[in-house]
């Protein structure tokens, strides 16, 4: 299990596809926990096209294959038709894997696992906060 933060950014999903994916991701994590921090909760970007989730996750639910399978189910296609491009970003000195999921030459989804699923909650949080700081114009209301 991994307590950390991950984010998704919609690149080309339609409204129905996006809603289906978000609903599935909101269901991840424990059904109950004495700590609010470990229950799935999220923050939505001002334009509604990106979400950051935090919870105590089963790492198996956050693998590249897991997201491929989700997108394949949403599209009604073979997961093998979905390709990925992985890079590593550093928002606060840590390593955040970022994966873009594509099909037929179109990028559909960007996934960021803040700090990576081997990171501590603190380090994942640092990466997430660093990301939010970097893109605060998109995530925060103006002063």
């Amino acid at each position, binding site marked *: 299990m991994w307590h950390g*933060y991950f984010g998704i950014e919609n690149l080309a999903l339609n409204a129905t596809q996006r809603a289906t994916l978000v609903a599935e991701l909101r269901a991840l994590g424990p059904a109950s926990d*004495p*700590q*609010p*921090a470990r*229950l799935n*909760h*999220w*923050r*939505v970007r*001002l334009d509604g096209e990106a979400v*950051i989730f*935090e919870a105590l996750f089963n790492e198996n639910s956050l693998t590249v294959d897991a997201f491929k399978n989700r997108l394949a189910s949403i599209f009604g296609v073979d997961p093998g038709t979905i390709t990925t491009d992985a890079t590593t970003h550093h928002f606060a000195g840590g390593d955040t894997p970022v994966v873009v999921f594509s099909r037929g030459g179109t990028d559909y989804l960007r996934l960021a696992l803040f700090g990576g699923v081997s990171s501590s909650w603190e380090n994942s*949080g640092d990466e*997430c*906060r660093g990301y*939010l*700081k970097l893109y*605060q114009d998109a995530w*925060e*209301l103006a*002063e």
Partner: protein
Amino acid sequence: MGMLHGTMRALLGGAKKSYIDKVLGTDPFAYWPQNEKSGLTAIDLINSPAQDGTYTGVTLNALPGPDGQPTPFFDGANDFNNVFSATLQGALNGSEGTLQVWSKVANAGVWTDGTLRRALTVSVDANNEIFVERSSVDNALRYRYEAGGVAETGDVAFGPVSDWFSIALTWSIMADTVALYLNGVPVAVKGALGAWAGAPVTVLVGARTVAPSRPWHGNLAHPALWTRPLAPAEIADLAVV
């Protein structure tokens, strides 16, 4: 009945909670010690469950507060305590009142990272709102009392502070005064207030909105609200645990 209930709750909690009793002695209309160790509910000692808050994402019992009671950690990403309720809305007085919250930032970098961090929000709309927050200006806190579109606001140099500090803001249309207190000392006083209009729809500890926007990064304890401006001597006393 609410006062008796609150006092009984404090006494039944076990060991003497002297700071909680002190706050209760000033007759707030809402007071959430935020000393829970588990669960989603932030108990309001004045009127529970009608004015209880709901935690989102905080880490409970993360750090001893200024009085040694457990306090929650707000992660500066997506945590807050939503204390809005219809009962609170009906009780809150935008023309006369006080807010107080004990605050502690997560680390020294919070004071200079240029990110707005909201400690407490009471809001009707953009023209009628009250808040205190970590300013985007280095080592400063920002307060705002806006009524009818007339804003009394400012950034006050404070920090970097690594320990707990008390923030209190009083407002009074009758006295035509808004005053910010830090650790019990008045640091900003303004007048020429506007006329408050409307009932609050947002009352949050640790954020500006439930998105959340401007989430606090650090710990917050003992948020409380009054329907009168507390006297300076009362504020000074509440700044001592």
